[in-house]
């Protein structure tokens, strides 16, 4: 059996490869939405905070898996929460897309469109404006609970490794360490996607910006439908 250090390296590599192979397709729409809604500001700090939150959630889940040693027992209790988070993510993407197109009656709340009048405007201004960059951290914490096949697979491994660790505390640490490594491994792919979506030449072209908004709404609706089916 591999040592915990070696196993963590395997998890890091797995996160990296899965990030480019899977996360770009499944979680990419979320980071693209963030990039587009952030406008022309610096994307790295908000995205960095989002990923810190997401990886922290994975780490906590890893600790729980390590402690219990049972993937199915934990996920059975999480299913309802995950469905809710899935729906929330879809709604978030739809609302951000709508805000970009101006389809919401009071939806002019992102940067260029921001109008301080209106309840929804103020709420989302607080949620996603650059002035509230720290908000991306709790968003990452929450969206780290999104149902995701490779994350489940990694959690199975964390539970298994926890079972094979002799002490309870060691089991928790093993689970946390492995999921931390996995989460960190997924970051480069998603940062790359965020960077590409945040390119200035892209945003300065109205037609691409418009298609971006429409795609966001489509993807958000798809997320909601998938969440209802999940």
């Amino acid at each position, binding site marked *: 059996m591999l040592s915990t250090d070696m196993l963590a390296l395997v998890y890091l590599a797995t996160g990296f490869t899965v990030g480019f192979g899977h996360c770009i397709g499944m979680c990419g729409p979320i980071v693209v939405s963030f990039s587009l809604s952030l406008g022309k500001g610096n994307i790295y700090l908000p995205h960095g905070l989002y990923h810190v939150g997401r990886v922290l959630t994975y780490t906590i889940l890893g600790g729980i898996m390590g402690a219990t040693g049972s993937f199915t027992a934990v996920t059975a209790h999480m299913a309802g929460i995950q469905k809710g988070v899935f729906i929330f993510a879809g709604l978030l993407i739809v609302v951000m897309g709508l805000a970009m197109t*101006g389809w919401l009656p009071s939806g002019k709340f992102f940067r260029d469109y921001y109008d301080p009048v209106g309840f929804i405007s103020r709420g989302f201004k607080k949620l996603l404006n650059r002035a509230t960059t720290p908000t991306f951290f709790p968003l990452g914490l929450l969206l780290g609970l999104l149902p995701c096949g490779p994350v489940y697979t990694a959690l199975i491994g964390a539970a298994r490794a926890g079972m094979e660790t002799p002490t309870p505390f060691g089991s928790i640490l093993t689970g946390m360490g492995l999921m931390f490594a996995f989460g960190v491994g997924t970051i480069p792919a998603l940062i790359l996607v965020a960077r590409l979506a945040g390119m200035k030449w892209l945003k300065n072209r109205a037609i691409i910006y418009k298609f971006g908004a429409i795609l966001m709404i489509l993807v958000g609706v798809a997320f909601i439908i998938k969440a209802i089916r999940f």
Partner: protein
Amino acid sequence: MIRIQLINRFPIRTFPLFLLISFILYCSPVTIHADNGYRKLINCDLHDEACVHRVDDTDIILEVKPRPVRAMKDLVFTVTLSGNSESPKSPPYIDLNMPGMDMGPNRVKMNPVGENVYEGKGVIVKCPSGHRVWRATVTVPDLGKAEFIFDVIY
């Protein structure tokens, strides 16, 4: 700063129509077609019976219980080797993944429970994409690999 005025170009009354179109696009051509494509690969019905794949002179028999095979449940995988070849020097193992979608490494380790019979516990995870076709690659050291592609209930 370039100010993009899209508001007037998208009257709000078109939004329900847009939602309907997006729903149709999502529900019919893309995802269902993709899943149907993978369903054509299915070579095994593990919900009802054990599946057999022949490698050289040996039958590799895979059985998964409890039936029907559901995602996110503890499953017991049994591999039985039947034929002329000798027992492998080390137990077989099973790698679970989806055709066309990388779900990360998920290996079921197996232990001998009888002569040429091996058993291991594992979980097939649920993919939010809704695709339900999974692949179990059984590797028997010194003999080879057998791929079982099957449907899973979510």
